[in-house]
């Protein structure tokens, strides 16, 4: 596409997030938070219409539900998905979730429980929630709105809530083949864990961001993906869909300062 579109960093990240679900087929796409949810919705409306989605409460929808007040619009449901059924789906593996953990380590392990010593933590957060079960049963991606060394920690995450690729953590006889990590979308880049021995590697860099900057803000060594390129810019069609899915512009508050998608050096 030759026309230059103006877009925000949040919109670039929504498009990058949508790429995480490409080719997944008939699975539940769960995007938790504004950008992941818009990414999943965009994926369903563009390259991956087979995806299943919910209204973020208890019903399945074939038309992704726009964020926020609906001005009287009543979504139409195609099925039912109570929390109980979500667990049945999770344990059967037919789901790909994108959530925002508080910490991520070099092994792809994630933390949502607490920062610091477990018994007397510096900061208690939410609790492990569904991370242990999600991470061992189905495909997961992660979202990081502020890429820094407090999120991408040097050692192991403070409380391993979600499983990763650290062999010592896996007891003999436990099945490891049901889990995988697809993508991490941050405000600087996208990462995957497809390097040698599942090492983390930078897959795309957002416009105006260098590999060195990403490395400086990451607590562990990163590799360059053989596929390394600039993160794809949103197309006019994608931007129009994003505006339709987010009519109240919640995405403007999703990244601090709502910076433009192309950063001036």
């Amino acid at each position, binding site marked *: 596409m030759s026309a230059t579109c103006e877009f925000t960093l949040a919109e670039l990240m929504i498009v990058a997030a949508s790429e995480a679900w490409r080719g997944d087929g008939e699975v539940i796409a769960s995007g938790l938070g504004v950008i992941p949810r818009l990414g999943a919705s965009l994926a369903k409306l563009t390259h991956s219409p087979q995806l299943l989605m919910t209204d973020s409460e208890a019903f399945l929808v074939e038309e992704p539900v726009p964020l926020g007040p609906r001005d009287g619009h009543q979504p139409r449901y195609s099925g039912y998905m109570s*929390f109980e059924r979500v667990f049945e789906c999770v344990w059967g593996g037919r789901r790909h979730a994108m959530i925002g953990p508080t910490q991520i380590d070099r092994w792809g392990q994630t933390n949502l*429980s607490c920062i610091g010593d477990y018994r007397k*933590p510096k900061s208690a957060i939410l*609790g492990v929630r569904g991370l242990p*079960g999600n991470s*061992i049963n189905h495909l997961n991606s992660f979202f990081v709105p502020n890429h820094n060394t407090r999120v991408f920690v040097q050692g192991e995450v403070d409380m391993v809530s979600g499983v990763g690729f650290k062999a010592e953590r896996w007891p003999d006889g436990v099945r490891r083949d049901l889990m995988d990590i697809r993508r991490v979308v941050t405000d600087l880049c996208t990462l995957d864990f497809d390097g040698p021995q599942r090492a983390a590697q930078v897959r795309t860099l957002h416009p105006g961001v260098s590999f060195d900057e990403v490395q400086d803000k990451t607590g562990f060594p990163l590799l360059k993906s053989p596929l390394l390129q600039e993160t794809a810019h949103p197309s006019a069609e994608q931007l129009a869909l994003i505006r339709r899915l987010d009519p109240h512009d919640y995405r403007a508050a999703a990244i601090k300062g709502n910076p433009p998608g192309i950063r001036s050096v």
Partner: protein
Amino acid sequence: MNKQLTAADAVAQLRDGMTIGFGGWGPRRKPMAIVREILRSPVKDLTVVAYGGPEVGMLCAAGKVRKLIFGFVTLDAIPLEPYYRKAREAGELELLELDEGMFQWGLRAAGMRLPFLPTRCGLATDVTALNPALKTVTSPYADGEVLLAMPALELDVAFLHVNVADRLGNCLVTGPDPYFDHLFARAAQQCFVSCERLEERLELDAGQARCNTFERYLVTGVVHAPLGAHPTSCPSDYGWDLQHLKAYVAGSQQEQGWQQYVGTYLAGGEQAYQDANGGVERMGALPLPVF
């Protein structure tokens, strides 16, 4: 048969050191009128089992929790529960932190009178590393897979809040998601249910009857508590009270904040509670949250 009793009667069944479960999910359909009665009572040293919302924070603030069995504590619209955090960061609580799915699996095991149920959830994480009491089991079949043996979460008492009940203990949950209340009911020795509307005897059509998610033989007592989930939501009747929750969170940042909450909202009983929250008309009209 008439199982109706008061919230105070139900809470009088509690003893120090009991394991008690709360239905609902985060700030959704929590039996808060009963929680307020527990807060007014002298009972202590409780083991609290919950998909935690403000009931966990309040019981922590009141110093009634010895041990917490949980997957999270949150107010949803306000992600972090302030009094849970304080208790947690002070190192005051004994903990069994579980994956959300493991948690319902443990309730299910208790309800089925099984010692455990196998799952993969929790393996290769600190959920198991921090809780050596959680054991693994090896599949006796050819696969030989090693699984976590999630122990039964047996409850002395479960408290639930539903939309409709009758004096026999038949209950209806009319909101879109029944959460795991049925599993709490099955896992408990005694189960007390508070309700928005109490009827003599339910006489339903087939569609309405599908809102019944557990049998009345599981229900020990029924408490008529209109607006009894406030400040949490009670779909399809009313939404959570964000104004109340915001004030609750703001108070937690102040010296004597909890004591002020107790004075304003708990000291005077349910009628005074409703008056302090703008009355039944306002409370019953709180809009359901849009997700």
